[in-house]
């Protein structure tokens, strides 16, 4: 299917500062990633962990059509992709939790296809909430965490997407990790 027309329209709207369009782009990216992840899970061998980064790239090519190597608009795209990947992981974790409550232990939980292996040892639900809180404190710091953690960008790549220096990203990252840990520990303590 070809979304490139939609994407074009949405991107130019984002360029004009239209907040609703950002939501639309996110929805598109999210759908695309989920579909991709599902089709991958169906075809891959069990135990094979999918590569979030490859998924994100493939979604990019599918959404933006041809001239992918230029990475036009990749800033908007990566932001949307990081958020989408977070949602997918959080949903997967939520489904697992529901399955456990339902006593459905025998079923193999697929985190919407992102990891077909063991459930992550980190509590993705709590982490998602913590990042939401972090976003209130500093939207940029929250994005640094999403780009780094959810789609695995390096410090330099994150800097390129956010158009800030690598030093800033590194500082944000160090700061955010410590902040998130404190936040998660305080939450757990209460």
């Amino acid at each position, binding site marked *: 299917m070809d979304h490139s027309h939609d994407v074009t329209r949405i991107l130019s709207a984002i360029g004009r500062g239209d907040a609703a369009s950002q939501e639309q782009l996110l929805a598109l990216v999210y759908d695309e990633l989920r579909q991709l992840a599902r089709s991958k899970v169906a075809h891959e061998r069990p135990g094979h962990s999918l590569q979030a980064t490859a998924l994100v790239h493939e979604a990019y090519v599918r959404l933006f059509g041809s001239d992918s190597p230029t990475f036009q608009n990749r800033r908007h795209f990566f932001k949307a992709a990081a958020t989408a990947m977070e949602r997918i992981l959080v949903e997967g974790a939520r489904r697992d939790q529901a399955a456990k409550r339902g006593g459905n232990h025998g079923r193999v939980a697929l985190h919407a296809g992102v990891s077909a292996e063991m459930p*992550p040892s980190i509590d993705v639900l709590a982490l998602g909430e913590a990042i939401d809180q972090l976003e209130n404190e500093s939207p940029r710091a929250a994005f640094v965490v999403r780009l780094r953690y959810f789609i695995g960008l390096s410090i330099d790549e994150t800097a390129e997407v956010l158009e800030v220096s690598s030093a800033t990203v590194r500082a944000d990252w160090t700061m955010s990790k410590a902040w998130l840990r404190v936040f998660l520990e305080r939450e757990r303590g209460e």
Partner: protein
Amino acid sequence: MTTSRWQKARELFLGALELPAADRLSYLDAGADDADTRELVREMLVAHDADEAFLENPEHLPAGDRFSVLEPGSIFGGYIVAEVIGEGGMGIVYRAQKDGFTVALKLIRPGVTTPGTRRRFELEADVLGRLDHPGIAHVHDAGTADTEAGPQPYIAMEYIEGAPMLEYVRREDLNFQQRLELIVLVCDAVAHAHEKGVVHRDLKPSNILIARDGTPHVLDFGVARALEGDLVSTTLMTGAGQLIGSLAYMSPEQATGNPLDIDVRSDVYALGVLCYQLLVGRLPYPSGMINLPHAISQITSEDPVPISSVDPTVPEQVDVILEKALEKAKEHRYADAGELAADLRRYLGAEPIAARHAGSLAQIRRFTARNPILVATILIVALSLVAMTTATSWYAYLANKQRNQILRLADLHRLDLCVRNADMLWPELPEYAKQMQDWIDHMASPLRERLPFHRKNLDAVRAQGTHVSGDRWHFSDVETQWRHDQLVELVQGLEQLFEGGGGAEASLFEEMKRRHRNATTIRSRSVADPEVAALWHEAATAVRSSPIYAGFELTPQIGFVPLGPDATTGLWEFAHLRSGEVPVRVNGVFQLQPESGLVFVLLPGGKFFYGAQATDPDGRNYDPNAFAREAPIVEYSLTPFLLSKYELTQEIWQRFTGSNPSQARGELLPVEKVSWAMCRETLWRMGLTLPDEVQWEYAARAGTDTAWWTGANKESLTGTVNIADRYYRDHGPAYRKYELWLDDGYAAAPAPVHAYRPNPFGLYSILGNVWEWCREPTVRLGETNRPLLNRPLLNRMVPLRGGSWDSPAVNVRCAKQGRSAPSDQNHFTGVRPAYNLMAGGE
């Protein structure tokens, strides 16, 4: 407002981190405006110190992506890293220095280790330190170092300058006797370890380096042991292909995966395989190592092909020795590497050897080996099926209906093997001719002989049913229906194999005969024939005395023929014989035809500045459009290499693969919609490779330092590129940039590969037309001044260069780095083949 609170906390936190732990609290007291912020930052400092790995290793991302490459000059566990000398699924090997001596420092990928592995590592290091033999690369140090990314297991061993065994033997063209002597030396080294009770477990040609003085050095003793038990993760990390690489030398007890069963006799088996391969150039198994289950079944249940039936000149004693080394049951093998060495020495000294043929099975094998007509039959049927005792009962066997059924199923399996093996029999070089001949004689021909038999069977079965339509028949009982359908599949498969698809395409069988013919004649056609030998001599003389090549010693390269220098550039050009007809120059310009083969330009070696920067207008390679990742500017030194003058055409792709995936079709258009993986495979078939990114940029710049080889202004591109020009506006997506000032003559599609003016190296459309897949730069020996490049933008992405008909001018800059997934097939991406000259030549 919260933002300012965040800012304040951030300042305090980062400031405190700069200080020694003892001074931090007083710093907070002085700097914090309120108790809440002070407490928050204090807790954050504690959290920071407690767990630096927090969030650093996302579990939904593959582990391999997090394994960063050490930069030259960085320090790891006291070692100073110099360069990467090898990379594999298990890890990366660096040349490194400590206390003045050089070591090979092997870092195991964190993803393939577990806490258990690390403990084993430390235990093994202790044992390995005790091995002391000139033929064993000495392990100086092994253990686990704590790094930012967590514990990192490593091994530091003696750095050996040498060539991998098979390469050495080929290069030095050792004769039979010399090869055997080399193996004996390897056995001696392994025997030393066996005396100390150490088993290697992963002996293979790539683990044995031969130093310049001809002495072998066995690497990686005990590494397999340390990693044992992580076989599953190893498989995941390395992929089946690499595992099969090791598997080929694994003993049956190893292949079936019982680690308790492994002892020194497992190494004896591996040495047997190694010796076999060294002597006759192939593995001792009847068919290749196709996939994991197949390889395991070959190792565990199929008897090795007697070496004397592969090469009748191999003396019977050697045949017997190898038979004993390769026994399935380890009790029947030599007791250790020392015994094997002793028997080989006895043979070399013309003394009677200790080994004897095993028994009746061995007798049958011997019989089959000496009776060529029966070879195929016995090899394929008797050894892979159940017991067959004598050759005379063979005909009775055939008459048996149940046997027919087995034969049919077995032939289906063999057909499958045959087709898949054919995929691996590339490129068409003399060293593969023997395997191609084997495929024709021992794999395919026996199947062809049985085709009439299977057809007759099919007719017989059909007599019991009713015809529905085409190949569909109806039978009253399920079993006959199944037998019929199997036979149809078999007969159709065999017809396809031997008679082709009915179209103009040659059948795979004919195709293999052609490949074999090419492989056996390519040497004389390209380098040995007096006429071509004279051309090479002329080329070498001209190159040596040419100021462009600065005294470079060109040696004949098998598969290529010199075409003389280009009139404009003075660079020597070469025809690649296998890809098509040799094109002819008229007035200095090649007249390309659809049937033309590739033309390669011998690019001179030299230094150049790689990358571009937008920050310093007076600095090197300044380009206001440069991306941050294209900096810094790095000086590289390259040795001469061959690069195709044109992008690979659809016609050539079709000739090698039998298909054309391109979206735009037409004469001499570049092939597109080919993935990186497809290109790598196809170029391998052609005996070629992808250029690495540094080679590509060097070629594109052709001595220039501006954004485009045509100059610093995009208007200078006129007449040299096919990009997103003004006609593109009517075809391309609306949001895309295009160049209104340019009319390149082609709209939203590629142009023929020779449509525009070439660059100063004589390379056509190196910018624009289609993106060209590249390899990531590899560090090569002798190029020590080459630091590692930035990691790619996205993990697991591969490079592509030069932009396309779909790109604005800014994306066809020489330094522009594109990245895409290796499986992407886009209608704007093709390939320009390269060839790295063989040292010492042919």
